[in-house]
């Protein structure tokens, strides 16, 4: 049987593609159901095609408010975590100092901790301090858990940098600031960008830590969580689909630019 033989030879590829399908399927469902007109409050069963939700994405109370809040928090959390994390990464790779082991553990532990544990303990701190829960407590929490991921991403890049490039800059009479801005930073930029992107995605999508520390403030994931109890508006799917399409377009555009640069460099 040639078919069976073909299947056996390509078993790994077939299994891999099946896994890929498993991972993509929910995104397809989210997309298809953004064109649904559900009968009841929940958008789980297909009824009929409709463009209502797409023509009025903010038509549900509080939805777009929570979205803009999530974007603002993600922006500032990314800025904070990227700045603090990049500094730590440079210190870890470029300098010798005491208590390196302790610093490394402090960076590693937040990544090896179930989110609920961090969420609950941080809330204990805020309750003890009498802090008012809201935008600031969520921002503090997000910077905290994004930090370690930024450090890891930037560290990997800085470690693979050739220190001779900076020595060469100094030999050519560049001052420390000039060397950093003109040589070190451009080389480290992809690592910093990767860290920032990761921080943004983690912050924007975080639910558990946010849910504990947000008080009555509602971020976008919290809005979705609430709607799973009260009734899911189709607009959620519209926003999910739009996010997906925009992100994939950005990634593909970046790939195209990178490819063109590569082929130009080859000429």
């Amino acid at each position, binding site marked *: 049987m040639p078919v069976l033989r073909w299947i056996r030879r390509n078993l790994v590829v077939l299994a*891999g593609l099946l896994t890929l399908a498993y991972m993509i399927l929910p995104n397809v469902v989210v997309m298809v159901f953004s064109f649904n007109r559900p009968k009841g409050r929940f958008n789980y069963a297909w009824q009929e095609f409709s463009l209502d939700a797409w023509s009025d994405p903010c038509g549900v109370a509080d939805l777009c408010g929570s979205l803009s809040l999530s974007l603002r928090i993600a922006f500032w959390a990314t800025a904070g975590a990227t700045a603090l994390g990049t500094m730590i990464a440079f210190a870890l790779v470029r300098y010798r100092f005491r208590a390196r082991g302790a610093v490394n553990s402090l960076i590693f532990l937040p990544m090896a901790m179930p*989110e609920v544990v961090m969420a609950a303990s941080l809330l204990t*701190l805020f309750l003890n301090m009498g802090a008012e829960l809201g935008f600031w407590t969520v921002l503090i929490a997000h910077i905290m858990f994004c930090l370690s991921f930024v450090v890891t991403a930037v560290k990997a890049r800085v470690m693979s940098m050739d220190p001779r490039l900076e020595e060469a800059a100094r030999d050519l009479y560049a001052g420390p600031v000039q060397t950093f801005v003109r040589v070190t930073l451009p080389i480290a930029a992809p690592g910093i960008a990767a860290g920032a992107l990761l921080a943004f995605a983690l912050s924007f999508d975080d639910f558990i830590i946010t849910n504990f520390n947000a008080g009555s403030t509602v971020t976008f994931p919290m809005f979705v969580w609430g709607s799973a109890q009260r009734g899911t508006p189709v607009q959620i799917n519209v926003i999910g689909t739009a996010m997906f399409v925009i992100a994939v377009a950005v990634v593909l555009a970046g790939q195209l630019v990178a490819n063109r640069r590569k082929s130009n460099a080859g000429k």
Partner: protein
Amino acid sequence: MSVTKAPPAHPAEAAVRKPSTRRRLVPYWLLLPGILWLLVFFALPMVYQASTSVQTGSLEKGFEVTWHVRTYWDALTDYYPQFVRSLLYAGTATLLCLLLGYPLAYLIAFKAGRWRNLVLVLVVAPFFTSFLIRTLAWKTILADGGAVVDALNTLHVLDVTAWLGWTENNRILATPMAVVCGLTYNFLPFMILPLYTSLERIDGRLHEAAGDLYATPATTFRKVTLPLSMPGVVSGTLLTFIPASGDYVNAELLGSADTKMVGSVIQTQFLRVLDYPTAAALSFILMAVVLLVVTVYIRRSGTEDLV
């Protein structure tokens, strides 16, 4: 650093470079803000939580440290089913992630060719839609009377899973199977990416060499590829197991009261019942169990690497 060896070109430069104590302080200044942040908002909260877990009292009268260690015992005896379930579900999901993720990581690393970047984008792409929305999509996919349930019913698969205790009443939603399915789905990328990184580093010539030495593809995989990808397997399983064990989103959205995991209990105790000591004790036990599992696992896999 070679900086100090070079003779200063002119006095102004010497003035900048001479105070080496200032230079030695640079790493500490770089570390200070970030480390301070982690100390205050990660380490200090752990101390507060430890103290909360041995307090007694009520919301009205306030809580006091009374070294009431019994809270831990009560929490364990009251909620051990949820603990066992969390570890069981997280463990099963991790295993499934490994079984499903390995072929895909292998495909991207060795077979995808010019499609490699596209497949990588597709692996990461789900991240761009909020994971709660995607988890809710599973409610549609696994719905009663949906295509999946109907197909599995026709093939009598659900009878087998029901016999195993994974499903009930010919449905998947609100059963352990739905929760594990959701967990597996949500944490697959965390398994695939480290697997891919460690597979990609393997020198393709090693495979050729194994073939030249008359190893069958299966032997090549067992003796060359798998051992060399172990770092990816270890970090992938950790990145999957740790967050899965504390997750309560999948259990709440796809499960039922019988599939509650320990994260749900901590959440309810903390945010609704407002029994802070019990919540703190539960979360400490979870942390201890996870750290224990992780340490033992790293030790074990470390020694296996050496053999």
